[in-house]
């Protein structure tokens, strides 16, 4: 029941090799050229700032973000017949961007994301580690942090954890939408988000304490 959570959503592109061929059971919509441009301009283009922001937060590089957004939009246009008008265009686009990032960019990126991620997964995977783990931090300690410090803390997280926080807290996707974008079950969305936030709070605590807000870290 949990094996292929996104398969039933034919408006979302098949994963893996991102969208080479729309699969045969995907009902291709026959848009005229004019309709294609209309869908593209009315449903896809309005999300371009969010897409760019997402790309930049993933790659942490302006040139890579440029390339990633451009590739994503060109793919979206080429496979526009597998997009059903009126469905969630933003989630559809984010999913293509995420797949392009994993397949084309993450490989050549200098970030050792895979290693980091597995490391962190094992550290936090045991039920014990997870349930015992609450970060000792107070709201007042972080309330004076500035945007750059928050961004740095976020950037310090392994990419899979960074991703769920961006999708949820910055872009406001629901868990269900995130599950489709990331091709993971909702339960995994929930637990990954939980872990991501614990890690983020640890980073924020480091910033807060380096600013002297924390009381007892001397000696």
């Amino acid at each position, binding site marked *: 029941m949990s094996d292929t959570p996104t398969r039933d959503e034919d408006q979302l592109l098949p994963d893996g090799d991102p969208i080479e061929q729309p699969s045969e059971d995907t009902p291709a919509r026959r848009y005229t050229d004019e309709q294609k441009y209309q869908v593209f301009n009315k449903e896809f283009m309005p999300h*371009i700032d969010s897409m*760019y922001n997402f790309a*930049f937060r993933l790659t942490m590089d302006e040139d890579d973000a440029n390339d990633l957004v451009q590739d994503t939009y060109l793919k979206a246009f080429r496979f526009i017949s597998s997009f059903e008008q009126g469905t969630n265009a933003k989630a559809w686009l984010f999913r293509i961007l995420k797949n392009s990032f994993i397949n084309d960019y993450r490989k050549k990126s200098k970030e050792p994301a895979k290693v980091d991620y597995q490391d962190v997964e094992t550290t936090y995977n045991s039920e014990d580690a997870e349930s015992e783990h*609450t970060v000792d931090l*107070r*709201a007042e300690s*972080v309330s004076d942090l500035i*945007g750059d410090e*928050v961004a740095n803390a976020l950037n310090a997280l392994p990419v899979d954890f960074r991703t769920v926080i961006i999708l*949820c807290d910055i872009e406001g996707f629901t868990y269900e939408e995130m599950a489709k974008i990331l091709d993971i079950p909702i339960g995994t969305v929930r637990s990954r988000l939980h872990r991501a936030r614990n890690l983020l709070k640890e980073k924020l605590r480091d910033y807060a304490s380096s600013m002297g807000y924390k009381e007892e870290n001397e000696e």
Partner: protein
Amino acid sequence: MQTSLPSSSSSELKPEMKHNCSHQADCLKMIQLILDGEATEQQLAKLQANLESCKPCIEMYHLEKEVKELLTKRMEKRCCPEQLVATIKSRILSFS
């Protein structure tokens, strides 16, 4: 033990206020569901009750809310460069 607890800022603690939460990890998960708009009515009611009676839950709630607001409000949103928008639009025009 009182020293390890941060003193409450303004409001007087009710006499039945708990200073230790026995379900802290579960409460934290519930708090996140609520702030994400993913909680059930039942969970909402439970948090409501905890926020009246459990100090660790109150503090966790404020922290989670603050962290979420840092991300939503304080981080700079990068906008797509005009040039890229123009490039994309002209590239797709040459497609068909």
